[in-house]
């Protein structure tokens, strides 16, 4: 049998041979069952075909695959057109709500999960509207549905493959985890499995971020060291998140400690890009946070980063001394267990003054040029 014939069914015959089907006829039968189902092979009785017919079998496959491919194309085309019309013609939040109800009926979601499902479904539909890629939205919603169902299982009983799949919807898993793990050790053990199953995927970054931000809310036990709990080398945590380019609130927790490593591992350019984006989106405009950045930059002997910090921080930049003073005051208050809010600190006052000033929008083109 020529190599061409083996390739005709897109590898299935080859797989069958690798699985131990040494007779070509048997390999064809297995491949055919996988491709078209048992009914077809029964109908055609491939195994009863005469010995010298195998030359025809290749062509037979080829023709059937062409039809199958056209069927799939027709299906995809119809799906694409229909989803587009649905998202254009309907209220996405209403559709998401109704779909969530359906998923809930099957998977018995917790209230928090239900909320998360509704958001994910609506986001997918909105994304389909914006990008014109409805197939992707459909696939995401399908995954949400599957993951919601899978989460019914006991997490410790999941296989690695199931973890990988379920993990892609980490929000659900976390809600379930809270209910099922009563000790930090057990959770840590499970999270190590999650990490090994998920690898360095983007989803894992999202998951790490989610866990970092919500740990105390999710679990009754306290752990300050989420990266360690996840089995991640702490020095690698920030670069991981930065590569994801989606880091938000988790930044404050890990940034001071890990920033120098991130610069070293990733280089200045991505870090600079990352910060400029955050400042632009006003996610990182708290005076105290900018001060932390300056603190770190001053800690590093890097003129580039110092310049960048000054420009992106604008008038909000405060001195290293005042940052230290603020930190000291905080530590002192914490020690004393004071409940009163801290009197206005020097840096905050400066920050407020800066807030009163007009936005630095005119600076943005310059920042864009830097990138």
């Amino acid at each position, binding site marked *: 049998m020529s190599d061409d014939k083996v390739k005709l069914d897109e590898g299935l015959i080859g797989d069958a041979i690798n699985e131990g089907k040494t007779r070509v006829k048997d390999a064809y039968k297995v491949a055919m069952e996988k491709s078209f189902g048992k009914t077809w092979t029964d109908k055609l009785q491939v195994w009863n075909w005469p010995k010298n*017919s195998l030359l*025809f079998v290749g062509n037979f496959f080829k023709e059937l695959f062409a*039809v199958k491919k056209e069927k799939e194309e027709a299906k995809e085309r119809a799906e694409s057109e229909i989803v587009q019309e649905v998202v254009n013609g*309907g209220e996405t939040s*209403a559709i998401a709500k109704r779909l969530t109800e359906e998923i809930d009926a099957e998977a018995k979601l917790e209230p928090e999960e239900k909320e998360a499902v509704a958001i994910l479904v609506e986001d997918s539909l909105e994304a389909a509207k914006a990008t014109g890629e409805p197939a992707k939205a459909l696939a995401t919603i399908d995954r949400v549905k599957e993951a919601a169902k899978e989460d019914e299982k006991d997490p410790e009983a999941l296989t690695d493959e199931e973890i990988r799949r379920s993990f892609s919807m980490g929000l659900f898993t976390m809600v379930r985890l809270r209910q099922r793990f009563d000790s930090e050790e057990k959770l840590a053990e499970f999270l190590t499995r999650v990490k090994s199953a998920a690898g360095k995927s983007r989803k894992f970054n999202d998951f790490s971020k989610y866990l970092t931000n919500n740990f105390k809310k999710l679990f009754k036990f306290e752990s300050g060291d989420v990266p360690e709990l996840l089995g991640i080398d702490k020095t690698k945590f920030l670069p991981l998140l930065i590569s994801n380019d989606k880091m938000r609130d988790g930044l404050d927790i890990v940034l001071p400690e890990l920033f120098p490593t991130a610069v070293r591992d990733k280089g200045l350019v991505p870090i600079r890009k990352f910060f400029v984006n955050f400042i632009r989106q006003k996610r990182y405009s708290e005076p105290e946070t900018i001060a932390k950045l300056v603190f770190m930059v001053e800690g590093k002997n890097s003129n580039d980063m110092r310049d960048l910090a000054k420009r992106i921080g604008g008038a909000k930049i405060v001195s290293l001394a005042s940052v230290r003073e603020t930190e000291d005051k905080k530590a002192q208050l914490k020690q004393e267990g004071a409940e009163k809010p801290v009197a206005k600190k020097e840096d905050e006052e400066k920050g407020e003054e800066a807030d009163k000033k007009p936005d630095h929008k005119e600076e943005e083109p310059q920042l864009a040029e830097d990138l």
Partner: protein
Amino acid sequence: METYNSNIDLEIERMLETSSVSPLLKAIVKASLYNMPYANKMTILRSLQKEQRKLLLLKKREEKIIEKYRGLMENLSKQQGNT
């Protein structure tokens, strides 16, 4: 703007039953029909009809292929029997 039209809704639901689109999409369509503008419903209906016609043609082609090869195999079997 008219959004609800029982005839077109019923027709879409009927077409969905035999369509090859995923069950999830079927659920999405059903969930969103009530508030959907007429024009969008019409486009969905046309897409479903187009898909249906295509599937019908492909089914016929499939049957022809099977018949062709079944015939070929029968001939081969006869030839082998004769030799």
